[in-house]
């Protein structure tokens, strides 16, 4: 058996500038951090003549015999695309489990791809670097499956930690931010994540965003430029340990982000956000593409209790977390080398 995991992430600033349509022309920058909530992949290599994939989150089971053509659709498209990339058609059984609900803005879809890649490559005896895993995940999701997404989630999940990720036409650079230990501890205590209970289809929001960039929508581009500038500032604030500045910047960025595409916010999200601000939160945003999922807030420690109580009265639930530092990892690997021989 092989167990691999990849973390989900919270994005502080820069979301949207990781689209190729944007960064190929202007260069992108995202500041994000992975947290200790993971997508787990359990892999067993067997002598069967099919592949089997089970997902606890989607309550889905997929079995496909070796001679059947691979169809890439449905909830299990990502793991199937990874298996197809390695030309694995038989003798693999995979079980997926997530510590966060799917589609909640924490980059869990890409974390699935990264975790499956990590697991399958490990079972095949390949030793892929963090960069190789991230780039392969981007290729499978964006090129192979044509998903309208950026590249920040794959790099965050593969690398782990708090990073400033720069996107350029000729490549991606990951800069681990060497934060002071007290800053990291403060982030864990003062960044709050609330589950709004509203899962959403990120693809529609992102597709609208991507088309707006491609069409040179001036308002959207102006917003993205401002978001990128905010990411530069965010990096500076984090390195300086100025979390008050982080909060203010989150608030300004959220106001910018809402202009990117319709559906990023709605009346309910606005109500949650205003309630949090009224009780002491300095700033925040809806995690990920928007439309629902996790509401991320920065709140000074002395106000955390009040904000939590106020939002829980509105029906939200707070999720405690700590920072992840290692990114995707293989936790257990007892697979036989026969996997490598079988699929060579």
């Amino acid at each position, binding site marked *: 058996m092989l167990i691999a995991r990849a973390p989900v992430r919270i994005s502080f600033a820069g979301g949207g500038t990781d689209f190729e349509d944007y960064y190929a022309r202007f260069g992108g920058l995202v500041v994000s951090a992975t947290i*200790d909530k993971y997508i787990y992949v359990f892999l067993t290599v067997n002598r069967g003549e099919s592949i089997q994939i089970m997902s606890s989150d989607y309550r889905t089971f997929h079995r496909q015999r070796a001679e059947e053509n691979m169809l890439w659709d449905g909830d299990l498209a990502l793991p199937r695309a990874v298996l197809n990339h390695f030309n694995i058609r038989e003798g693999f059984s995979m079980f997926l489990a997530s510590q966060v609900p799917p589609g909640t803005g924490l980059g869990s879809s890409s974390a699935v791809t990264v975790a499956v890649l990590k697991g399958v490559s*490990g079972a095949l005896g390949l030793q892929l670097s963090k960069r190789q895993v991230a780039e392969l995940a981007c290729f499978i999701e964006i090129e192979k499956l044509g998903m309208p997404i950026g590249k920040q989630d794959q790099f965050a999940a593969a690398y782990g930690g708090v990073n400033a990720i720069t996107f350029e036409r000729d490549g991606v650079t990951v800069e681990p931010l060497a934060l002071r*230990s007290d800053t*990291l*501890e403060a982030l*864990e205590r003062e960044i709050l994540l609330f589950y709004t209970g509203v899962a959403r289809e990120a693809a529609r929001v992102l597709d609208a965003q991507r088309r707006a960039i491609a069409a040179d929508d001036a308002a959207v581009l102006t917003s993205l430029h401002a978001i990128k500038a905010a990411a530069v500032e965010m990096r500076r604030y984090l390195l300086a340990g100025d979390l008050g500045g982080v909060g203010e910047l989150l608030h300004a960025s959220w106001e910018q982000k809402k202009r990117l595409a319709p559906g990023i916010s709605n009346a309910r999200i606005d109500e949650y956000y205003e309630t949090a601000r009224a009780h002491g939160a300095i700033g925040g945003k809806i995690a990920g593409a928007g439309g629902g999922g996790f509401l991320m807030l920065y709140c000074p420690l002395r106000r955390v209790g009040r904000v939590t109580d106020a939002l829980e009265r509105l029906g939200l639930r707070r999720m405690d977390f*700590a*920072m992840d*530092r*290692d990114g995707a*990892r*293989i*936790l*257990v*690997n007892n697979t036989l080398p026969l996997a490598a021989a079988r699929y060579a």
Partner: protein
Amino acid sequence: MLGLLLLDSVAVAVALAAAQWLASDQDGSWAGVLPLLVGVPVAVAVFGLHRLYVLDELFEGPTEYGRVIYGCTVSTLGLIVLGFWTQPASVVSSRELAALAWVLLILAVGVARFLLRRVVRTIRRRGGLTSRAIVVGAGAAGLSLARHFADLKHAGVRIVGFVDDFLPVGTPVVDGLKVLGPPSSLARVVEETGAHEVIVVPAAMAWESFRELSHSGLNLNGTAIRVLPAVRDVVAANVKVHERGFLPFLTLERFRISGVDAVLKGAMDYALALGALPVVLPVVGLAATALLVTGVRPFRVVRMVGRGGTTFRAVFLDTGWPGGVQNAVQRLLYRLGLDRLPLVLHVLRGQMSVVGPRPIPVARRAVYESWMPDLLLVKPGLTGMWALWDEPVSIDDEMRATLFYVRNYTIWLDLELLVRSVLRLVGGRWAHPAMEGGAARGRVAVH
């Protein structure tokens, strides 16, 4: 290190001089001593070759003494060989001298090393001569490792923190020790804490972290890296390291106490039991007669769990405790703790030991089931950790102490417990050790 070299040199010189003096019929002739002293550098060099100056491998366990015997044997042979080249002023002038030199070398160096161990252990108990260690993996195995060294101060290892794949930085693990970072930050953590060694617990860490550590661990600036085999999590069985085909194997012994330890413990058991018989038999006879006179059957039999899960029928004087109505004689016998005297016979039958874990009745085995894998590795004892509490303790605390005994068995620990037991007996505190939580309920006198 220098002190150790000096100590060995003195011990070797004393042994060789004594051998020469004895071999020359104690006539005061020291003529042969000077040539013989060439043996000092020879012996020290041989000791060095036999890893008797690798500090990491000293002061613990019987291996060091084995190396001393081997080193002294090789040194004596070396002196004999030198004798062929130094004629006529032979270094070793007779077979008698060679034999004496061999015996006295082993004795002198062995005693010197033994005394040094006592000194080192005393210093370590006071916090000196300790090695600061980082544990990689803060799971259950890592936690028990930290507790183990906290209990075993004379081992000279002081855990200063953990690195872990699964717990956030700052998480308290045990006794104020915290997670200081992930395994990927090990080099930094070692530098910041000034650790001398890293103890890796593969069972408590991610496979990938272990693989990366095995590749990069060689770059920890000379910090010793030790790997704790996962077998320690399962049982406290005696583990021997063997090399087969250049691979290190851990062989599990069936019982915890084996080899020299088993011989010494057996000798102590039989010597003490036989020595006690002249006192025990008359006392048991008198007590049984007194019980008979009061109309009580003098003996009762309880089926006990023995080493390896076997069972045996243990005989006790019937004091009516607990649950029974006691007459005056029974009360007296119980108060004096004499109901257990017949158990001495079970020591002679090889079913029990003088020192060991609490004897457990088969009827109460279920209560101790979670500790059984460890308890079954040794014989139950007439006395032990369990018999030396001043206050009632919980079954968990008692078992923790008993497991410490099983896992860290040495003949010295037996002797220490024996002395403490005798002092209690002399001090009139040989009562039935009680436990909290009613663990002692049931008609079993040993509880």
